[in-house]
């Protein structure tokens, strides 16, 4: 069997439980769809209590829907090797002849699929409940921005995954730390330009920062005044970031795997 075919099959095999697994416990799907709406609703009422323009309702619904992807990247991509180590599966991955990148790609594809269900459901429900006004004039551009954002953040997740090969409980704490601070610097619930140019520029190393800003411009009329950069420029930067993170993930994974093997951390649990 060629390497390409082997890696393709490994990718499909790893994506399979991600796509089908959640549907075997329907309550998870309900939790995933309805729970984010509580936080989104709270932020919408917060904006409304201050008399914010209606476009901010859309910003919150979009940001809330996109948190699903970021959470998936952190806990089900980056931290996955830590979970696999804890459950004893990681050593089996290492014994198998396929590329580790194929396993991560499978996780990413499966994760993107299932998380899209959560994100789209959240967005549609938010759209209906809070009467969000959307005006998409360039649907292809919006689709391109969305896909490139996903590829870039999942590439970043693959890179983080390598760190989790050597980390113990610090991994969980790191994932926890990467939630609210990233929601802040990426402007999940407010226009990122509010942070000032240089902070927003620094925050743009996390691709979802630019992705959110570009999607807002392409979805909500009158949001241009809150834009950080033009969506065209943001798209080009995100393509670069996606390529950069995927390449970095490949090198980082190889380096960290060797480090973990040398230090005997691949099978170390409860540390």
């Amino acid at each position, binding site marked *: 069997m060629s390497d390409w075919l082997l890696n393709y099959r490994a990718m499909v095999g790893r994506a399979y439980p991600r796509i089908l697994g959640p549907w075997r416990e329907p*309550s998870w799907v309900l939790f995933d769809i309805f729970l984010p709406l509580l936080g989104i609703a*709270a932020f919408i009422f917060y*904006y409304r209590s201050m008399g914010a323009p209606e476009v901010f309702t859309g910003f919150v619904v979009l940001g809330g829907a996109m948190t699903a992807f970021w959470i998936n990247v952190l806990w089900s991509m980056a931290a996955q090797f830590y979970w696999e180590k*804890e459950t004893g599966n990681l050593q089996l991955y290492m014994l198998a002849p396929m590329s580790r990148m194929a396993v991560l790609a499978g996780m990413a594809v499966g994760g993107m699929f299932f998380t899209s269900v959560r994100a789209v459901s959240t967005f549609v429900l938010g759209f209906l409940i809070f009467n969000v006004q959307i005006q998409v004039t360039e649907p292809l551009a919006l689709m391109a921005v969305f896909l490139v954002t996903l590829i870039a953040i999942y590439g970043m997740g693959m890179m983080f995954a390598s760190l989790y090969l050597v980390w113990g409980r610090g991994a969980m704490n790191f994932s926890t*730390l990467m939630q609210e601070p990233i929601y802040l610097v990426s402007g999940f619930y*407010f226009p990122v330009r*509010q942070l000032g140019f240089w902070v927003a520029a620094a925050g743009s190393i996390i691709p979802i920062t630019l992705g959110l800003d570009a999607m807002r411009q392409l979805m909500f009329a009158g949001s241009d005044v809150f834009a950080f950069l033009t969506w065209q420029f943001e798209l080009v930067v995100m393509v670069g970031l996606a390529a950069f993170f995927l390449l970095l993930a490949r090198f980082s994974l190889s380096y960290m795997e060797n480090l973990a093997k040398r230090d005997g951390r691949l099978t170390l649990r409860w540390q």
Partner: protein
Amino acid sequence: MREQFRTLKYAAWLGWQIESNWTKPWLFIVYSIAKPISATLILVLMYLVILSSSLTRPDIFAFMFIGNAFYMYVAQVLFGIVMVIHEDREHYQTLKLIYIAPISFYVYILGRAVPKIVITTIAILITLAFGVFVLGLDINFATVNWALLALAMIVGLMCICMIGVALAGVSFLTAKHGMGINEGIAGMFYLFCGVVFPITVLPQWGQAVGLGIPITYWLEIVRRAVLSGSGVENIGGLQSYSETEIFLFLLISCALFFAISLAIFRYADRLARKKGKLDMTTSY
């Protein structure tokens, strides 16, 4: 009583070790404060993008800031207590060993909550200091009603722990729903209890839900104690009630939640033993 105190002490020590000994102390401190301060700054930025400066509506700003700061107890302590069951049963697989030890499991769970309360208290103090010294939050320490604040904190923290224990009981019976339960309850409280906006912004049915949860009264009392004399009592939607009346509502609703919490925990405990769920592992 001495035995119970001993259990509480060692459970707290164990909780502290699990929380903190995975890294160096300075890194642990950074991790402990970065998350809550970021969560607060998100709200501050949302406020600033609409109202430009914290001085535009200092009453609204103070209402949001204090509510969000003290809500950290709900998010962190509640989450911590529920995760004790998950961690001990699934991750460290020590739940059954603790169960057969001659201690009260109820007290053990409360003991595990103590480090969470300590860490959260530090995070809240840092957040408040940041609010006062950097963002211009107007707290006059001379007019703070310290006695009311202390009473509210004791009752409020007990109430949060009780809700946490009830949810821990529910966690006995569920496999992979711990995070969902946490997210759901914390989200519900955040939405309905007037944490960052007055409950009057909610529709009528939402206000009714909020008035049935003790956290609503607790946050109102805390705000009135910390911002005493600032007129904050006119914002939250409970302006027709005095501090004493709200404190009474808090006490009654806490007593009710305490009874419900005990009943849920005991029922779940018995059912979990009967169904053999105390040593269940689901690779999660």
